[in-house]
């Protein structure tokens, strides 16, 4: 049992940090522009594919820096020529625009890179065992992902709390019109924040594409879960996104790795494996895992719409 717990905490933290890389950008974008970016996971996917293609020419380490910048540029173009135009029609068309964009990006990725997964592998420099826990190897690459995430969180925190740019961003979060009145170009701030958020998702993709699988379905896999994280953490809150990412990551990994059902733990109590509650009683935890994030999402929105750390209701 101790092994399972340690194992699921380690892997859960890893999964959680990947979730955080995506959700931090999404929550910033939402907090500032009120746009729930449906295509955010698509930028994560672009990050993985860009890094894969670049990596063949330049190697992983260069791609690690260039790919997020490229993704950020794509994000800037999308904001400047797409979102900004739709902005005048209101929030619903903005949401719909990003929704359509997710379809288009997925199709374009499938067009250029094919529908089957690409062989995007970790660099040799990180391909060794870092430490061994209960007979299970923990590779250096996983440690590297953790380091990237920590660096990102610290960097974000410094940027938002300690720099002048962060001050403007924080101001635009709550009072965009006032920041505009003080002479800042708010649409430009919006564009940069959008690009920055996309670049963060792209960075997540650069490492996440290796850890998981790089195929055109990866955006569709991750997208809804990132929403759950952002809502659970509180829309617009970066620390909230961190905590929620870790909660979801650990919870889901735990449910996937333990062999557990109510009937096994408590006893069947004469409940047959049929009917709604009977099936639920006998359901193994691994089969509940995919549902768990969405259950959390719905419950959060019903009982605490501002999430764990959010200051205002969505």
């Amino acid at each position: 049992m101790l092994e399972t717990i340690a194992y699921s905490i380690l892997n859960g933290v890893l999964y959680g940090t990947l979730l955080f890389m995506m959700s931090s950008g999404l929550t910033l974008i939402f907090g500032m522009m009120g746009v729930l970016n449906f295509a955010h996971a698509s930028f994560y996917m672009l990050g993985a594919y860009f890094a894969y293609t670049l990596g063949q020419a330049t190697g992983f380490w260069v791609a690690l820096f260039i790919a997020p910048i490229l993704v950020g540029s794509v994000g800037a173009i999308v904001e400047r020529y797409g979102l900004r135009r739709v902005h005048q029609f209101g929030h619903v068309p903005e949401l719909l625009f990003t929704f359509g964009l997710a379809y288009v990006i997925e199709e374009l990725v499938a067009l250029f890179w094919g529908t089957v997964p690409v062989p995007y592998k970790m660099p040799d420099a990180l391909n060794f065992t870092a430490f061994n826990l209960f007979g299970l190897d923990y590779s250096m690459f996983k440690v590297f992902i953790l380091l990237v995430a920590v660096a990102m969180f610290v960097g974000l925190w410094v940027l938002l709390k300690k720099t002048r740019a962060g001050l403007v961003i924080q101001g635009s979060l709550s009072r965009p019109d006032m920041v505009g009145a003080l002479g800042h170009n708010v649409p430009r701030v919006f564009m940069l924040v959008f690009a920055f958020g996309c670049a963060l998702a792209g960075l997540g993709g650069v490492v996440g594409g290796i850890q998981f699988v790089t195929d055109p379905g990866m955006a569709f896999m991750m997208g809804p879960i990132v929403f759950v994280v952002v809502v659970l953490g509180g829309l617009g809150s970066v620390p909230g996104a961190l905590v929620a990412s870790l909660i979801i990551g650990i919870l889901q990994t735990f449910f996937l790795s333990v062999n557990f059902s109510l009937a096994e733990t408590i006893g069947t109590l004469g409940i047959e494996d049929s009917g709604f509650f009977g099936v639920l009683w006998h359901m193994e935890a691994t089969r509940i895992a995919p549902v768990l994030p969405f259950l959390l999402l719905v419950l959060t929105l019903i009982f605490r719409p501002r999430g764990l750390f959010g200051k205002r209701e969505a």
Partner: protein
Amino acid sequence: MATNTAVGKPSLLKLWPWVVIPIVAIILPHIFDSGHDINLMSHMSIAIIFALSYNMLLGNTGLLSFGHAVYFGLGAYVAMHVLRMVNEAGGEGLPLELIPLVGALAGMGFGIIFGAVSVRRAGVVFAMITLGVGALVHSSSLMFTDFFGGEAGLFGDRTYAPSMFGIDYGSSVSTYYLIVAWTLVAAILIYLLKKTPLGWMANAVRDNPERAQFVGYDPTFVRFFQFVLSALFAGLAGGLHVLSDEIVNDEVVGQIQSGAVLLGTYIGGIGYFVGPIVGASIVTILESSLSTYTDAWVLYFGLLFIGIVMFAPMGIVGVIHLQYLSWKAGGWKGNTGIRLYLLLAGLVGIFGLVCVIELSYHYFRSWDPSAPFGLMGFTVDATGAMPWLVSFAIAIAGFGAMLLHAKPMLARRTGAKTEGGKA
């Protein structure tokens, strides 16, 4: 966004679509009589009810749902279980004509359950809850295999059920007529619902919930009633889906289905009653016929949707309506040629873009990119530079002429006229 909220005089002449459309629907199977076409038209009818029910939320009440397939799908599953019960009882029990009603009731029931927790807020929170409920139900469909039939889905046999009128539903044409009849009933009901005080209050809640509350109507209740009624019609569509396909699997509750109805409704135009009808028809036709011609149909679909969201948020019906109004008011006088030129240039640009996309798909996707392939009636070699250059040239020339030449020209002409009118 809604333009048809003005109270018009109930004139009998205005009801012509209600006469013309059923006649067209009755004649169509005699023109397109292949099994595939009739199947397509059945699906179109079902998509129309589904889109109309969706627009009760999005267009009339301003609620953006990402999980409307839940009510369609659960309605379909419950209807399928009833059909199977009838099958197992040796073809005795509920007549086939009434099985869609079971779907409707199921849709309504689930609408009451999920609606109660969804409608407290509009906007993004509502959208997220529906997304969550949609994902929840879709994931559960693989957990509860007794009810959802697992990955294989559930089968039923529509011919092995009694009919109220002694009709044999073995042929797809008679099923098509049954579906059309239900579609008409649903469309009329949805249209009339729009004209009830509830329909008007839904519009008020969409436009300004605070003022609606001030007048004495609880926005939550108005949203809830609209949600439940909308779920009812979605369930009806699901029940009809059971009759036409005789199989339901987890796709009917899935996010793709929810996305398709949103896309179709929006492409048609959410501010018009006929918008969802047009949109659902277009999407169904595109989905079934375009996919046989090209691999790129999802891309076209996405681009069309983005184009509508960016340039014509009133939808296809909205664009036609605005142009019609402008034409009626004499706004086309002296510039009809320029308008046609603008349209033509745009079409040329789209043609070029389609050529580029088709070339790309052939180049990147096919096993042998150098194999000759048919593009718009020409046989070309996708590895050569020529077809690419020509396609790009057509696209750039078309869009360039539209944006840089025709559009300013039209703006100058209409601008000059309004100034002249002022003077």
